[in-house]
């Protein structure tokens, strides 16, 4: 069981690392091409929401997964014994 947990922690941390790298790549692409991206967003065409929503989804998925995995196997695990479910 302990080995399984450790394995899942390792997998989660590896996934977090890959997601962090993906986030860095996404941010690099957006900020090095910010003029072009801004022009699309100012266009008031359907490309504007398509672009912004695609970037938002990708950024939140990559960075969110990384942060969630890291906190799940550190802080959340540590606080497990202190959980309350009362109103």
């Amino acid at each position: 069981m302990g080995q399984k947990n450790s394995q899942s922690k390792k997998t989660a941390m590896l996934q977090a690392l890959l997601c962090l790298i993906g986030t860095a790549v996404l941010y690099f692409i957006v900020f090095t091409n910010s003029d072009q991206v801004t022009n699309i967003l100012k266009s008031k065409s359907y490309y504007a929401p398509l672009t912004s929503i695609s970037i938002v989804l990708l950024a939140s998925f990559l960075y969110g997964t990384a942060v969630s995995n890291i906190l799940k196997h550190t802080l959340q695990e540590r606080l497990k014994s202190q959980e309350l479910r009362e109103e």
Partner: protein
Amino acid sequence: MAGAVEIPAAAEAIKFIAMTPKTALSLFGIGLVGGVLSGFLGSGGAFIMTPAMMSMGIPGIMAVAANITHKFGKAIMGAKKHSEFGNVDMRMGLVMFVALFAGVKVAVSMNKGVLEKMGAAGSNLYISVMFVAILTWVSWFMYRDIKRQRNGAAENASGKGSTLTEKIRNINLPPMVHFKVAGVRASLWLALLVGFATGFLAGTIGVGGFIGVPAMIYLLGIPTYVAAGTELFLAIFSGAQGAFLYALNGYVDIRITLFLYLGSLIGVNLGAIGTRVVRGSQIKLVMVSIIVMVALSRAAMVPVYLSDMGRIAMSHSMHDMVTLLSNIFLYGSGLVGVGLIMMWILQAYRRAEKQEKSEVGVSSQAAR
């Protein structure tokens, strides 16, 4: 990073700010504070985020657009986290989002109309007045609830405990729907009304949670942490629709949104974890503390925006002083809220550590 890009012509509010390291760091901080509050309260990050961005010089409508666009992704990740904890009533969320769509649509049209008719200062004034009016009402309502809870035992004993909200909650207007996760049975019409109000506020000031969460708690009678989780689930839809509409109108600055994410996705996870180690009453306490301070902050800014519109005369020094006072209340509310949440998480962490140490001590004694 690109400098400020100004769009000429009629849309004077569209001003893409210069992205300096200081701006980026401020956005990270705003995102972190908003994220913690959002994860803990279900929404409510925009209590702080929209006015804080406005205080940085971002026009009101663009601050709302950035916030609602960022809320879309944050809500997906936050709801996923809350769902892991069993805090999301998807049936309630799905019922409410139909009305919520209509609410956002009405609000975005109104915001656009205000901007076209009154300009940037008028739009800022409108958003601030909406903040003050709504926050004052919600804080007064919650204050009365806390007061009532204090006297709860005595009132119940004398049979005077039935309030307007309890009467509304008990309306049996068919069809009635059973919400399994929340553990309540409520009128479909009531759920739709709460959804519309939440959507309208989300579209108007970039936040709907501070009306949606109290409404779910008091009008629909669901537990505080389920209200928080369900509100985040609901925010996915309001965020998606708001993000789409504001982007279609050219108000989204994606750079602001991306810097907000760096802080807010850490914060939303911390906040969600925080709900596991506190009681429902502690969640309400954080909410009401923040609401009062943000209402004061926005109220202070109303004369400043009136002065910007040329409706009243105000000296530069007075202008700066009032703005500073508003910022103190605004950032103070964030600090108070996040401070309380982090303090409780830290206390739980210490308790867990202490418990672990004592368990290790007991097992080593048993081994001897």
